[in-house]
């Protein structure tokens, strides 16, 4: 049956639509401006006013970024760190969350406190560096994965998600002879798609964006991830724009920055639509208990 809208409903929907459209434009325009800025001339941006379209397609900024010989290896390193690191992190996080979600686990409260304590107090940068150094991970790409492989926050989130699944399932599975591992892999994980997708996204974004660790642990530039290289390209541009040193750089830092935002954000942004439906749901469920 088709619903009949009253005059007030129509007015409300019109206003609502107008307002939300404005919000949408306000939200999208900065992204659009960055896209325009990355392919426009500096003169077009300097003239000021409201800019809706670029003044042609100028790819000098992208050329400047990709002229850097480190880009291919950096992209490879970032992909490795993101894929392997996320898989490794998820493995550890799932195991930790699963164990802590078992209500009959002896010392469960103490173990939870033990993990949560690390969220409140960290060892500090120098001790962490000394540990990484002592286990021989300096100048090793695993130094970008292992030290921060498990996030307590993510683990607690996933534990809460696991706890929201009825315990009766576990008991039923036990009666049917399912082992503790079988319950995890055959029942719990298939039911936790939303939570897993969310945590996977958290980890992959954090690995994708990481650069500080590489500054500290990695001296060999062939092991640098993409973010470190891009940061260097941008800093060089800003310095050169200020001081003029690099004669080859005819691109202003502002344009270069826009191009780098596009290069950096677009790949990871493309992942969102595929897991968006899990994303909101996963966060909501995880946050209900704790």
């Amino acid at each position, binding site marked *: 049956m088709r619903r009949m809208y009253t005059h007030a409903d129509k007015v409300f929907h019109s206003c609502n639509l107008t307002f939300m459209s404005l919000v949408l434009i306000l939200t999208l325009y900065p992204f659009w401006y960055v896209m325009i800025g990355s392919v426009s001339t500096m003169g077009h941006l300097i003239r000021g006013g409201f800019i809706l379209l670029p003044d042609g397609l100028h790819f000098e900024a992208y050329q400047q970024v990709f002229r850097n010989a480190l880009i291919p290896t950096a992209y490879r390193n970032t992909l490795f760190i993101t894929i392997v690191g996320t898989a490794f992190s998820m493995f550890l996080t799932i195991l930790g969350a699963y164990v802590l979600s078992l209500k009959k686990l002896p010392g469960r409260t103490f173990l939870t406190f033990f993990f949560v304590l690390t969220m409140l107090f960290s060892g500090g940068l120098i001790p962490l560096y*000394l540990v990484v150094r002592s286990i021989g991970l300096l100048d090793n790409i695993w130094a970008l994965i292992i030290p921060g492989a498990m996030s307590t926050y993510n683990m607690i989130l996933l534990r809460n998600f696991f706890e929201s699944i009825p315990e009766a399932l576990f008991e039923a599975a036990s009666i049917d002879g399912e082992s503790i591992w079988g319950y995890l892999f055959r029942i719990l994980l298939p039911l936790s798609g939303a939570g897993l997708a969310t945590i996977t996204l958290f980890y992959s974004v954090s690995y994708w964006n990481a650069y500080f660790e590489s500054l*500290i642990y990695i001296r060999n530039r062939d092991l640098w991830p993409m973010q470190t290289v891009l940061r260097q390209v941008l800093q060089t541009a800003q310095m050169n724009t200020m001081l003029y040193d690099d004669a080859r750089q*005819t691109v202003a830092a502002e344009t270069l920055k826009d191009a780098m935002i596009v290069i950096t954000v677009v790949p990871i942004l493309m992942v969102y639509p595929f897991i968006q439906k899990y994303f909101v749901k996963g966060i909501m469920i995880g946050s209900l208990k704790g």
Partner: protein
Amino acid sequence: MSKMWKRALTIFMAMIMLCGFALPAELGLADGDEPVELTIFMASTRPMNECTDLTRQYVKDNIAVDMNMIQGDSTTFDQQLALYVSGGDMPDVVLCSYATYLGYAAEGAWADISPYLTDDLPDLMTYVGDYWPYLTVDGAIGGVPRLLNVPSSHVVSIRKDWLDNLDLEEPKTLEEYTEVMRAFTFNDPDKDGKNDTYGLSAAGYSYLSFLMGAFGASSERDYFLNDDGTITTNAISEEYRDALRYLNSIYTEGLIDPELFTCTYEQAQAKWGRGEMGIWSNWWSHAGNAYYRFDFGNLQPDAVVTHLLPPVGPEGKSGNLYATPFDAVVSVSYLCDQAKIEAALRLLNFNASPLGFRVLMYGIPGEFFEWDEANNMTTWTTELNGGVSKSGKYTTTDMEVYKLLYQERWQGQSDALYSGPEGKLWYGGGELRYQEPVREDVFCMFLTDEYIKYHAELDSYFKTSMIAFIMGEKDIENDWDAYVAEYMNMGGDIERQSQLKVYNDTFNTQCVFAE
């Protein structure tokens, strides 16, 4: 000895002599020893590639130093260095700030290079000149200063076409400058029929120094040595107060862009590009950058830009902001043995030499640059051949990865190779720095404990007060005494007394403050 043996010996000797002549003497070649690897840590973002690898190989072949570069991040440099030191991984050579150098020197983190500073390093000794005392801590010298060696880095750019439109001459005195700024603000200099221009704009308060210099003051917390041996504290001096009076008057009249105090470099470039001001106080290279990277030629096609000397004040005073002689030190780690210390100094001596500087700046000679016997750059592939090297094998990008020391004047020669307006402005701006009068800040290299303790707070108070006086938020006549009292109470007096003591001790003088 048989004839054959004599011939062989003669040929052998001749070959040795030829080899000796073929190698440039100024390289200071090692005597056949294995190259010494030096890990060099510096905040750098410059890309390393096959072109810079050629430079590394060239240095390795010619002075037996293998430069293993560790590039740090400028924002976390001190943190990274602390990690390396605490982990026992201190790099052999560290290019750090002067303050960082002094801090680590007090802890004995640097090797004492003073016994190695001999006449065998002629270019380095000439380069550093009289600056060794600034590097001496507890009788030891732990590094070499990276000297800027220019009186000032600020210049004044002006729209000459606007002067022509208004039938005005290039200003020289403060009065003439004020008249020009007034005309640029109110007389429609761009002839567009709109009142949309200012006399002056810049990226921040420090660029007002060129006007304050006309009163014998500056825009920073400088200390000036007077002819009678007294030292003037700029922040509380009558000269500074006079300068503030003048700036307040032109601000109130509307001759200065009110956004000047919050303007960033990019915003100032945009304003210049949109033709919003006729006088732009800027960094010496910025007017050239406007053409090269900010599309100024298209935005203002009729513009004619030139540089000016700062104005001469009523008492004949003039000056722009003083540039600190050096801001960084190439320091040598305490972990280095004799071979490494010698290698580090050999590298620095090479960097200070005419050829060495250009190799570390532009790449290997012949392939990436050429120069004549009078030390002038004649070609630079980056500019003249679209970045393609002479043989066509390499496309250059940024080549300055291994440059540790500055040689501003030599570097300026490459500016002259540019054919467009940017080249003229870069070169002109660069050379103008050496012609500008400045008042030297005689305490700028004395970073005493008291300075480190009070500097940040004093600086903040000084700047905010300056802006408040100029904008009229504080009254220059009624609030001045309170400002001076507050400044001194905040540590201003303790700080300057500590610096004066070090100054007198260093130069064996008996200077006192003028105030």
